[in-house]
């Protein structure tokens, strides 16, 4: 921990009023990055180069907050310009088109696919699972999950896990990253992953 990273990296955490941000803020700070927490796009500092979007709770709530706080176009333009966006948990799910959880709600459609309910009697999935990943940053690491819904396999999937069905635990398309698990709660592996992905 406490790696000294390039002073050029500044991470903005998007506060969608969807869960406590303390752990993710701590993780970003301890990784040595400049950090700010923003509710609205106009609050973004000019020198921010990484957007991090955590999300807990329902798909529709997070999707609605993205619209209510004015993020939709900003996020689409940001990713369109090749800049880095990292979605965590429901923050990853809204990168896709829609969700079985809230059929009317619109995701960002930055990735194609729809979120499905996990078919397992114990819901939500809570706990640690080993990632099946070809990425050295995640290969055979244990990650902490809290979710009832997930993305089925995607062409941009970088890590897979089985809970009733096989689902996508992580995705990456160029500078767009998604993690269904909680890296900020996944011990030293998760903290190193946050540092690595923000810095890359």
């Amino acid at each position: 921990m406490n790696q000294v990273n390039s002073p050029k990296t500044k991470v903005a955490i998007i506060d969608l009023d969807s869960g406590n941000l303390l752990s993710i803020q701590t993780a970003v700070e301890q990784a040595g990055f400049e950090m700010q927490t923003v509710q609205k796009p106009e609050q973004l500092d000019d020198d921010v180069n990484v957007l991090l979007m955590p999300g807990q709770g329902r798909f529709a709530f997070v999707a609605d907050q993205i619209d209510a706080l004015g993020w939709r176009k900003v996020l689409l333009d940001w990713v369109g310009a090749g800049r880095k966006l990292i979605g965590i948990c429901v923050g990853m799910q809204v990168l896709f088109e829609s969700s079985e959880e809230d059929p009317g709600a619109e995701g960002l459609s930055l990735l194609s696919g729809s979120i499905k309910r996990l078919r397992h009697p114990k819901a939500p999935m809570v706990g640690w699972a080993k990632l099946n990943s070809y990425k050295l940053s995640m290969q055979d690491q244990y990650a902490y999950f809290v979710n009832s819904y997930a993305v089925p396999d995607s062409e941009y999937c970088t890590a897979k896990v089985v809970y009733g069905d096989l689902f996508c635990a992580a995705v990456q398309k160029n500078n767009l990253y998604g993690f269904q698990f909680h890296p900020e709660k996944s011990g030293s592996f998760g903290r190193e992953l946050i540092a690595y992905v923000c810095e890359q």
Partner: protein
Amino acid sequence: MFANNNMLDKNKTYASDLIPRIIPCLDVALGRVVKGVNFKGLVDMGDPVELAKKYEEQGADEIVFLDIKASVDNQQSALDMVYQVATHLSIPFAVGGGIKTINDVDKFFNAGADKVTLNTAAVQNPALISQISTKYGSQSIVVAVDVNKNDEGELAIYTHGGSQLADVNYQAWIDEVVDRGAGEILLTAMHKDGTGSGFDCDLLQSFGANFPVQVIASGGAKGPQDFVDAIVAGADAVLAAGLFHRGEYTVGDIKEYLLNNNVKVRK
């Protein structure tokens, strides 16, 4: 009773990559970890953050903090501790003790807790389980069920740290806890607690693999084989205190033993 996913076949085996969790439990009073559950003669065991970090480094999957003096204590010390833990741990943690209202719960979540644990308050006011589940999600609430077996072999529920018999039927209470949206049941078999004769594996087995919430086994762990037995009997997680605090085993020792007995754990 299957409140969730009732379209699933309860006789089927569902694939899962989830692994059993090992959870050290810390008793806290006035912001310090203490030994002994009586109000008199509490022995100071140290700083909760330092001890929790030690267990995290040993490989703990989660930590539970029970504030045993919360009911007579100024709640601020508990909230300060939760904030300190949240900014120093990188694994999930639950807090319990003295929670009575949704307002108490809000304070603990705002301070950074991942989950709350209820026992007496859940029995006295079961609607609180539903309130928390609706507001924060099932994953945020663990209901501690203290169960004792009498001479006739009947199971009964206890509250107030195991001192008072509750006026609820065992099975009806388990069903209600699930229906109201608890994400996990922390099951303490009082007739096994402190006996050093292991967990109550028959009781754990009675839940079955497709029980709709996770079951954490608590009470009775004397050594590593007890962890193996509890997990084989179906526990999703095992919570223990004494054998870790006394330094008899590290979390790493327990996990090593589990791995050697073909139980997958996170190392």
